[in-house]
Structures are given as structure tokens and as C-alpha cells.
């Protein structure tokens, strides 16, 4: 029953809950009877009612895939260090909010904070899941405000400055500005052009026509100079590097059309083409903006990882003061102070202080891990609790993170430069068009004996009519539609070339843990356990955030947390009862003789009962077998490559009917395996989730990682998919193949249009209105054809 609450499949509607147990009024999780599951929820409910915000419960929509808003006891933390204070004494603080469910949460948080004294602004951003707070008063008030929100069941963490920079998204804004300018200018110039064409048909005088042309030029020139910059810059960069890309013919077309139109305006000619140039720029920018939006979130992760390698660290001096030093200047053995919310900058061992760490960057485990003196910590880990001192054991490139980044860079440089389809076509297309224009000029000037100006104009029309508007749209429109289709089902395409590379693959290499199996462990053999022992253990475990404790509570079903449980960091939980002490934790913590453990385990000891063992095992993703069968049916070769022991790998391979499996592979071994496959001429998709998969993800032709994976693997992977299911892997390959065929049709369509129009242009029969109509028509055909990717989605 509780496993339903863990179903995190996006796109699928949450399964209806069975109403056998009563649900907590506040957090919606099952209770052991009664209206509330815990004292925290009861207090949150009372607070909300007292503030007159009870409407929250009618308005909200709880998503079972997300963390329920159950208040948890937090360590005492100080936020004063993270705030900015301006000259007028206004303090400002930006916090990441965990547990946002829907619009009602935004309303609740903002309303609660607005009722707090001296608060000036409290605004939640749902897209970036952050809260911006401004208040007038003392800096210490931060802790009180945070406590108010956390008492409702949310969790606040100081916002990482790296994320803050990514959230501002300068490129996206610049593109939108350019789009707005192009749209404004295109609309106005088009209106004037329609007036001119109508006037030409009805005998408009040359003076009026000149006025119209000058007006168009006045609007178009500055607009093109501004809005076409993204294409011009990219084209110039490509030419400097001695390559061509699609932006080269596009830029050439835009510049030529503009220049010819300007010359025609100056000499009082009949035809100008500013509207064509502006519409082209507008369509292309629209594609870029959509593309940028779709990949925004993934890009933030990538920028994030780069930012992690920068930052300074605070080194404790012998006299007790701290000094900010660059990561590289920290010596081995130096003691480094890590404040709450700060990334640890070095590898080391905790010297002093108790805290909880977010090690998702390194392990992929998203639940905070408790850490106490003596614990090994790695660079890139986020300190969620109190300040700690860390004794440095490695810095800079010698850290685990640095080592991994180095391996990834090495693998990526071997991957070489993948040339996208559009660029391969542009390489042949651009010279062909230029030769056609040159031949047209020669034909009119040398063969037909036309005046120089007329010959030049006809040659220019050839360039205008063949300006690859539809061709330049053919690929990005498909990309945008396919990307947003995948995005809606919870899959992020990070690399712009990923789709094309995905369409080519013929082999898939899977990692085992966290990829074919679920990222969290599950309690094994629940049926064989003593139900009474399980109940007692669940009551203890319900008070802890430890992954094993979570797995235990998930398997045991609803349980009221026992009162007065003490958590011993890294060892277990103890609970004093009238009969004696109950303990849940590691073998040694429960006072049992040491013995090797084949699987992760927890022990329960209580007075008057024999010790009870809870073993945890990996479970396959629910649809792993079905998806692999579907992939095999699609003609793909499936390989399992794991760092785990042969026995465990063999069991999984047998369960999934995988004939080719490799066990006990180190990260370099995996890279070697991929290199071998590449040498055989195979195109490999690598699916993996761990830090150790980072290098092989980079070495594969294309790579995918589950969203539960380590940040490193998500950063390197071309595709990141969410949820408990493996189905997205099959979906992306299918979408990629469909996208490839639609792209090819688009290219064929736009080339066919050019072949049809070219003779008209060479014959000098093209007028501006014909050019505008033909260009828009071909663009619309290409766009509507692209929407066929979505075919079958509605069923």
C-alpha cells in the first residue's frame, strides 16, 4: 500500500489509494489510526487553522510522487550567514524549498510569511523552487521565519549561488529580447509591404512607393542588426574555425537580402525583401527560444558541476581565525571549516562537529546522510546541518570529484566531434546555391547581354529564394517537438545532437545498480518476518531519515513513530521502554558478535525476545523485463556491465534474459569495453547512474542516466530520465528514430521546394510577394509535417 506512494512515474496518473487505513489530515500519509500521523502534522494543522488559512486543504493537490509535507525535526541551524543586507537595513535571503507540491503550497508559504512581523517580501518561485525573503529587523529573524515554514512540513536550504546564477539565465533573456524585436519589426514591415504590393497593382506613384520602402528600411535595418546577432556570431565563429554550419547560409541569406533591399531602396527600385529577411529571423529565433527552454533545467545541472570546482574554502589557522583560500592552495592536513549550506571543497575526514550531508553528487543517494567525527567526506558534498571542521586528505584534481572529471574529459576528447545532419547538408548546400547564383549572373550578363544591375538583381533573387528558411527550420522544429514530448514524460534531452545520435544506436550497455534495479533498497522476505518485531522496528525507524530505516517503514506499512527515540549517528536508534532498551541498527550497535553480512542489514534487539535480522535487497525496476524484451524486438544488442560481484550480476542477467554480461568491472574496464564495441563498428547507448559510470557515459556514442543518479553522471549523460520505470529508455530510442525519419522528410520537402522555385528565380520571374508567400508556405509545410512526431500520443 505504501509502495503506491513511492510510484514516481511522471505522465501516468497516480493510482487511486486504497482507503483501508485513515489518512493524515495534514500530510496525507497513512496513520496508525486517528486524524494525524504525528505530533508535527497536528501542530502544522493547528497553525494553519489559527492563521485562517484552512482553505489550503481544499485547494491543494497532493502528488504522491513527491515528498509529503510532514514536518520533521530539524537540527538547530543559523541562516544569518547567508543573507545580504542593503544600505537601508533590509535583509534578503534566498532559500531552496523542498516539498513544494502545487500552487496551494506557494499560497500557503507566502501567506504565512506575510503574517509574520516586519516581513517586506516573501515570494516563492515555482519554476526554480526557491523562496525569496526580505525583511526589516535583525538578521536573527531569519531562523524564526525559516522555522515557521519548516513547521508546515517544508524543508528549506540556503540556495546554492551556482544555481542562483543559472536561474537568472542571461542567454534565454537575450534570445527573448531578440525575438520580441524581430516580431515587432516583421509585423510592421509586413503590413507596409502588403500596402506596397496592393499599391503596385493599382498604380501607386514612385514617391509613395519610395516612402514605403524607406520606412521599411528604417524599421528593418536596426531590427536585423540586433535580432540576427545570434546567427551572425555563430556563423562567424564557424568560419573562423574553418567549418560551416547551418548558420552560415542563413547569415549569408539574411545579409544579402538586406543589402540588396537597401541598394534597391537607395536607387528607387521596384522590389525590396526586408519582410522576408525579418520573418526568417523571427521563425529561427522562435525555434531557438523553445529549444533553450526545453533544455533549461538540464543545463543548470551542468553549469552547477562546473561551479562546484571553483569556490574558495575557509582554512582554520592555528590561532583560531579562518582564511579564505583557493582550493588548490590548501595543504594536506589543513583543517577546513565548512559552514551550513556550503559545499565541501576538499576530500577529508571530519574532525569536529556532527552534521548531515547531501552526498547526491557522489553517491546519487538523495537522502541526507549523518556524519560524525572520523567520517570520510568528499569534495562536492553539501553540508546541510551544523558547521564542521574537516581535516584535508586530498585537494584539487586529486579529489574523487577531480579524478572523475579528469576521466570524463579524457573520454569526451576521444568521442570526437559529431557532425549533425543539418551541418552535413549545409556543407554541400551552401556552395551549390552560390554556384547557381554565379551561373545565373553569367547567363544574364554574358549570354543574354542584360545590363549589369539587372543581372546582379536576378542572381540575388536566386540567393533569396534558395535561402534555406525551410531547411534551417527542418531540424530545429523536429528537435523542439521531440524534446518537449520527452520532457512531458519526464525525460530531459541535454545535448542538442542527442536525438540524432540516439537514432543511430544498435547496442545498449546497462549498468546494474540503480539502472536496471531501483535506486533504493527494499526489505527482503517480508512474509517470513515476525510481524510483531516488524511493528516495533517500524515504530523506531519512522523517526529516522536513514535510507534503510525508510525502506523498513515503507515495507511495514503505517506506523506511529515511537516517542523518545534517540538516533546514534551512523550506528542506529535506541528507545528506552519500561521493560528495557530497544535497539535498531548495525550488528555491533545491537551488541551482537561480528559476522560478515552478505547484504545490507539492520538488527532489532528488545528485552525478552531473540534478536531479529532485517535484510535488504535490490529490486528490479518493475518494467525492466518488458522494456528489455521490447528493445530486443527492436533489434538492439543488450549488454550488462557492472562493478558488482559475478553472483549478483548473474542473478540479474538471468532474471532479465540477458546473455551478455560482464561483472566486477572497474571504471577503466567499462571504458575499455565501450572502446572494443566501437572498434567493432557498434554505436552504443550507455545507461548508468553512479559516479563510477561517469567516464563510460562520456565514452559511449550517446548516454542516459536516471534522475536518481549521481550529479556527475547526470551532468555527463546526454539524456536524463525520471521515475521508477525503465520505459523512458525505449521511448527515447523510438522518438529519436521517428524524429530522424521526419527530419529527413522535412529536408526532402524543403529541397524539393527549392528545386521548384529555382528555375523561376533564374528566369527572373520572382517578385517580393511571391518570395514571401513561397517562403512562408514551405516553412509551414515543414512545421506541420514535424508535428507528426506526436502522432499516436493521444491514444
Amino acid at each position, binding site marked *: 500500500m505504501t509502495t503506491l506512494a513511492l510510484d514516481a512515474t511522471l505522465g501516468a496518473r497516480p493510482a487511486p489509494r486504497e482507503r483501508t487505513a485513515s489518512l493524515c489530515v495534514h500530510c496525507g500519509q497513512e496513520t496508525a489510526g486517528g486524524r494525524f500521523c504525528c505530533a508535527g502534522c497536528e501542530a502544522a494543522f493547528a497553525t494553519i487553522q489559527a492563521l485562517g488559512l484552512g482553505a489550503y486543504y481544499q485547494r491543494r493537490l497532493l502528488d504522491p510522487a513527491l515528498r509529503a509535507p510532514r514536518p520533521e525535526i530539524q537540527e538547530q541551524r543559523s541562516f544569518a550567514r547567508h543573507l545580504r543586507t542593503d544600505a537601508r537595513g533590509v535583509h534578503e535571503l534566498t532559500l531552496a524549498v523542498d516539498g513544494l507540491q502545487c*500552487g496551494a503550497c*506557494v499560497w500557503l508559504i507566502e501567506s504565512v510569511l506575510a503574517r509574520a512581523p516586519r516581513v517586506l517580501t516573501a515570494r516563492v518561485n*515555482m*519554476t526554480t523552487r526557491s523562496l525569496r525573503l526580505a525583511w526589516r529587523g535583525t538578521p536573527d529573524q531569519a531562523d524564526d521565519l525559516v522555522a515557521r515554514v519548516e513547521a508546515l512540513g517544508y524543508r528549506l536550504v540556503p540556495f546554492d549561488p551556482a544555481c542562483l546564477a543559472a536561474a537568472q539565465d542571461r542567454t534565454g533573456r537575450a534570445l*527573448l*529580447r531578440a525575438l520580441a524585436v524581430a516580431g515587432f519589426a516583421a509585423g*510592421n514591415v509586413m503590413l507596409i509591404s502588403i500596402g506596397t504590393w496592393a499599391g503596385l497593382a493599382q498604380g501607386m506613384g514612385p514617391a509613395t512607393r519610395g*516612402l514605403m520602402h524607406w520606412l521599411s528600411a528604417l524599421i528593418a535595418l536596426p531590427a536585423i542588426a540586433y535580432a540576427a546577432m545570434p546567427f551572425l556570431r555563430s556563423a562567424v565563429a564557424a568560419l573562423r574555425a574553418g567549418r560551416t554550419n547551418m548558420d552560415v547560409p542563413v547569415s549569408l541569406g539574411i545579409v544579402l537580402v538586406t543589402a540588396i533591399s537597401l541598394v534597391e531602396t537607395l536607387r528607387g527600385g521596384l522590389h525590396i525583401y526586408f519582410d522576408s529577411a525579418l520573418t526568417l529571423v523571427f521563425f529561427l529565433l522562435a525555434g531557438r527560444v523553445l529549444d533553450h527552454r526545453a533544455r533549461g533545467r538540464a543545463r543548470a545541472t551542468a553549469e552547477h558541476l562546473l561551479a562546484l570546482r571553483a569556490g574558495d574554502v575557509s582554512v582554520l589557522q592555528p590561532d583560531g581565525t579562518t582564511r579564505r583560500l583557493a582550493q588548490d592552495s590548501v595543504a594536506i592536513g589543513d583543517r577546513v571549516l565548512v559552514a551550513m549550506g556550503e559545499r565541501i571543497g576538499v576530500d577529508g575526514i571530519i574532525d569536529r562537529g556532527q552534521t548531515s550531508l547531501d552526498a547526491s553528487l557522489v553517491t546519487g543517494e538523495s537522502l541526507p546522510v549523518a556524519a560524525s567525527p572520523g567520517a570520510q567526506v568528499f569534495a562536492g558534498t553539501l553540508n546541510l546541518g551544523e558547521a564542521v571542521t574537516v581535516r584535508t586528505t586530498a585537494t584539487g584534481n586529486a579529489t574523487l570529484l577531480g579524478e572523475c572529471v579528469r576521466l570524463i574529459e579524457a573520454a569526451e576528447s576521444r568521442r570526437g566531434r559529431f557532425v549533425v545532419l543539418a551541418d552535413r547538408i549545409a556543407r554541400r548546400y551552401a556552395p551549390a546555391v552560390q554556384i547557381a547564383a554565379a551561373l545565373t549572373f553569367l547567363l544574364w550578363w554574358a549570354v543574354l547581354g542584360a545590363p549589369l544591375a539587372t543581372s546582379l538583381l536576378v542572381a540575388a533573387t536566386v540567393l533569396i529564394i534558395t535561402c534555406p528558411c525551410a531547411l534551417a527550420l527542418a531540424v530545429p522544429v523536429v528537435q523542439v517537438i521531440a524534446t518537449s514530448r520527452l520532457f512531458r514524460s519526464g525525460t530531459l534531452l541535454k545535448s542538442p545532437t542527442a536525438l540524432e545520435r540516439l537514432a543511430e544506436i544498435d547496442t545498449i550497455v546497462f549498468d546494474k545498480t540503480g539502472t536496471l534495479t531501483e535506486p533504493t533498497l527494499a526489505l527482503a522476505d517480508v512474509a517470513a518476518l515476525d510481524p510483531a518485531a516488524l511493528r516495533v522496528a517500524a515504530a523506531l525507524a519512522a523517526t529516522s531519515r536513514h535510507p534503510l530505516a525508510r525502506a523498513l517503514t515503507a515495507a511495514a506499512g503505517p506506523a506511529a513513530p515511537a516517542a523518545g527515540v534517540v538516533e546514534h549517528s551512523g550506528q542506529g536508534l535506541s528507545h528506552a521502554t519500561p521493560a528495557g532498551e530497544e535497539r535498531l541498527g548495525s550488528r555491533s550497535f545491537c551488541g551482537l558478535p561480528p559476522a560478515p553480512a552478505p547484504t545490507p542489514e539492520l538488527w532489532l534487539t528488545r528485552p525478552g525476545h531473540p534478536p531479529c535480522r532485517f535484510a535488504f535487497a535490490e529490486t528490479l525496476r518493475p518494467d525492466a523485463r518488458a522494456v528489455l524484451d521490447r528493445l530486443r524486438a527492436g533489434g538492439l544488442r543488450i549488454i550488462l556491465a557492472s562493478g558488482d560481484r559475478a553472483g549478483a550480476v548473474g542473478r540479474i542477467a538471468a532474471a532479465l534474459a540477458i546473455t551478455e554480461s560482464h561483472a566486477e568491472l572497474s571504471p577503466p574496464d567499462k571504458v575499455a569495453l565501450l572502446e572494443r564495441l566501437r572498434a567493432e563498428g557498434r554505436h552504443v547507448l550507455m545507461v548508468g547512474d553512479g559516479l563510477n559510470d561517469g567516464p563510460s557515459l562520456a565514452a559511449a556514442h550517446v548516454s542516459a542516466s536516471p534522475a536518481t543518479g549521481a550529479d556527475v553522471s547526470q551532468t555527463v549523460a546526454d539524456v536524463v530520465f525520471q521515475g521508477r520505470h525503465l520505459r523512458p529508455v525505449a521511448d527515447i530510442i523510438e522518438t529519436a528514430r521517428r524524429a530522424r525519419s521526419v527530419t529527413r522528410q522535412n529536408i526532402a520537402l524543403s529541397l524539393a521546394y527549392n528545386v521548384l522555385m529555382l528555375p523561376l528565380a533564374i528566369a527572373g520571374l520572382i517578385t517580393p510577394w511571391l518570395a514571401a508567400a513561397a517562403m512562408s508556405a514551405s516553412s509551414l509545410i515543414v512545421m506541420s509535417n514535424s508535428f507528426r512526431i506526436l502522432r499516436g500520443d493521444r491514444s
Partner: protein
Amino acid sequence: MNVILYLIGLSLLLGGGGLGVFLWSLRAGQYEDMEGAANRILFDE
């Protein structure tokens, strides 16, 4: 035909005004939280 000068000037002014408002709204950060904005209209403050 002099009216054309006023009308074109007026239409450009109106269009330019729209562009100005859009650029202002972009600068004011109104496109930073599209998801939140869609939800916010459901709740009276």
C-alpha cells in the same frame, strides 16, 4: 494622402509601445516563473 504619414507614425508608435512594454516586463522578471504565475491566479490574496 498626407493622412498616411500620421497613420503610419501612429501605428509605429503603438507597435513600439507594445515592444517597450514587453521589454519592460522581461526586465521586471515576469517570465521567470511561468509555472507559479499560472497557479497564482487561482488564489485571491
